[in-house]
């Protein structure tokens, strides 16, 4: 108990420390109010919800740990007391994965291992994740100095379907705010003046997670904050500040077996009611569009629009010539052009989307044809070994992701390129036959 009190004191001192740097004088007046707020705030740590499939941790989870590590290292160099990156993992026979999470940046892992948790089921997983996120005794094991744990300060989910659904239901259960599809995160002290949150008065919010979300076009960035209501007429605390993170945007940190951390076994409380959704069967199906077994991928975007049908046919021919699979950018999957139904139902489909809301690919050669290079698309193709773009506009962002940038119109460049490749193939074929 005493330690908790002293903790809060350090905390308050720290706030003053920051405020001293603040030139605004009137802020001093509110220090008392903030101290009070900070004292009752027992929300600690960054909790990261890990996803695994049949004992394999998904890459996006490692990426979240990587970003979490960087954020909390910064946090800890700036604020006191130190807070941790806590991985939550659910499943069956997954204990061996916990160490792996620590190697990838977690300070602690809370693990719920139970036969019923083998596959994610939203209802059951939501209950267990919420139990963990509000469990004081696990929190106490993470940092013994703090036993007044209320909820996580921050919480990360992966913005894939499973993570997105879990983030929504968990945050509905924890009654706090959530931002989706985030690709940049910053923790800052922010002065906020908001019609409702602060009733129009400027108030400083400490340790606030700025969550950057690109809009669907890839051109606008919206920063979302999850803030307590400090409006005297409707006071309410909102923790954790949570988000779902776009897979593929943040780098993992290097696996380091020297990293130490605590693994906490969590025994879930499972009610019969929580098990009412039953998994009867599961089977793997082959993707109709196969990006993995092709060495080359040709993707096209809105740049085809001037002559959509003809350009798609050209792209089709080109892909055939180099045995490539065909990908598209997200806007194309909304079938924005009225073209031959056969072409549109073959190519303008979500299955072919490359990017954050589609697949991530790493072919030997990636062709970006008429693709401007929205951030979402880049996230899906940046791992390609070699990138060739065709675009009339040398200002298009895709140039920064290209090894070769062919400046020109699709309808003019592709026929020439197809011809050249054909010529080259013929040339190369003859000696082989002689052999």
């Amino acid at each position: 108990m005493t330690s908790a009190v002293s903790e809060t004191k350090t905390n308050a001192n720290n706030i003053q420390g920051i405020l001293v740097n603040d030139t605004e004088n009137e802020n001093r007046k509110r220090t008392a109010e903030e101290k009070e707020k900070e004292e009752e705030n027992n929300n600690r740590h960054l909790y990261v919800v890990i996803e695994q499939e049949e004992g394999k941790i998904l890459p996006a989870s490692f990426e979240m740990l990587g970003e979490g590590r960087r954020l909390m290292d910064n946090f800890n160099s700036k604020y006191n007391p130190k807070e941790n990156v806590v991985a939550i993992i659910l499943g069956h026979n997954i204990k061996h994965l916990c160490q792996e999470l620590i190697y990838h940046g977690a300070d602690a892992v809370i693990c719920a291992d139970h036969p019923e948790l083998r596959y994610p089921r939203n209802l059951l997983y939501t209950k267990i994740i919420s139990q963990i996120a509000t469990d004081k005794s696990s929190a106490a094991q993470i940092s013994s100095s703090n036993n007044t744990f209320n909820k996580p300060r921050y919480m990360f989910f992966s913005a894939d379907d499973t993570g997105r659904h879990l983030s929504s239901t968990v945050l509905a259960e924890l009654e706090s705010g959530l931002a989706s599809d985030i690709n940049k995160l910053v923790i800052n002290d922010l002065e906020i003046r908001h019609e409702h949150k602060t009733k129009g008065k400027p108030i400083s919010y400490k340790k606030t997670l700025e969550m950057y979300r690109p809009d669907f076009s890839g051109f606008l960035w919206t920063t979302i904050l999850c803030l307590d209501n400090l409006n005297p007429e409707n006071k309410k605390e909102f923790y954790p500040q949570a988000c779902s993170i776009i897979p593929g945007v943040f780098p993992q940190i290097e696996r380091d077996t020297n990293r130490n951390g605590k693994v906490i076994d969590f025994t879930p409380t499972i009610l019969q009611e929580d098990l009412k959704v039953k998994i009867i069967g599961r089977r793997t199906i082959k993707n109709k569009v196969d990006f993995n077994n092709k060495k080359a991928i040709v993707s096209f975007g809105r740049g085809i629009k001037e002559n959509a049908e003809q350009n798609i046919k050209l792209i089709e021919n080109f892909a055939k010539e180099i045995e490539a699979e065909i990908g598209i950018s997200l806007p194309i999957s909304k079938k924005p052009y009225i073209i031959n139904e056969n072409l549109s139902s073959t190519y303008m489909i979500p299955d072919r989307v490359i990017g954050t809301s589609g697949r991530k690919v790493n072919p030997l050669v990636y062709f970006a044809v008429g693709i401007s290079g929205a951030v979402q698309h880049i996230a899906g193709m940046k791992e390609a070994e070699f990138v060739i773009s065709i675009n009339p506009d040398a200002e298009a962002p895709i140039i920064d992701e290209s090894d070769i940038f062919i400046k020109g119109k699709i309808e003019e460049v592709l026929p020439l390129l197809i011809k050249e490749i054909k010529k080259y193939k013929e040339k190369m074929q003859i000696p082989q036959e002689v052999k």
Partner: protein
Amino acid sequence: MLNPSGTLNVAVIVKLEPDFSEGNVSYNSDGTLNRAETKNVLGPHSAVASSAALYAKVKYGANVSVATMGPPIAEAALQQSQLICNADELHLYSDRIFAGADTLATSEVLRAGIKKMANEQGIDIVFSGHRASDGETGQTGPQTAWKLGYPFIGNVIDYDIDKERGYVRLQRLIKNYGHNDIIEELESPLPVFITLDPSYSPFFNTVSQRLNLALNQNDAEKRSSRYKEYLKTFSAQSLELNLKSVGLPGSPTIVYKVEKIPRAKANRKADIIDGYSQENLSQVARRIYGILGETIIK
């Protein structure tokens, strides 16, 4: 089933969205959507959800309620949905106080609205779309489910109902982007909250269902031309909502700022090549061959 009379009650949550089809969508010169000049229509995922309700109506004789939250123009989404699913009831949740709501506050409105549907008999299945196409979060559906206390099941590609037992059996598609996909088969007692995978399309596999489908489509045309007769508009008050839990007051999150995404640092240094020069393209062809090698030459 919740309704003692044995009628299956289903609901659809829909949204009015920008129409991204050619000729209807307009972009600003900086590449962002020009919302003022872009037409609005029933979102494609909402249309998919509506078609799932149609399936329930045709196959199980379900009673269908459709709802949306938004300003009065959002009625258009209800009308277009009714044309798909031959809805028996349309709900518009419209109140100035709902403005600025984030997903948590929105789902609170939807929760209250769904409770009012079908003479408050209780809804057995709520359908909603996968995500809205104008970059929505995909959070509203699951959050509404949670608030209703309904199990949430996402990415559904097929479902059938066992009316006797009050169970639903479903298939859902789990996309492991980059890996092979998984089809998971589930069973759950009603009620449930379902979001449909974008690939969902109802299939009616007997002559009787098809005939029934035609009757419903016929009816839907008539009904949606007089959709106002089916429309009920609710305010925060008529939904008996706590004003602190909706709109801005009920939203934990705020939009802090909107900015143009700055150009990222170049990851690669591109050779810029004139696409009209045959000589240059010949070199490109050689380089492509150099990397791909035998795969393209057999």
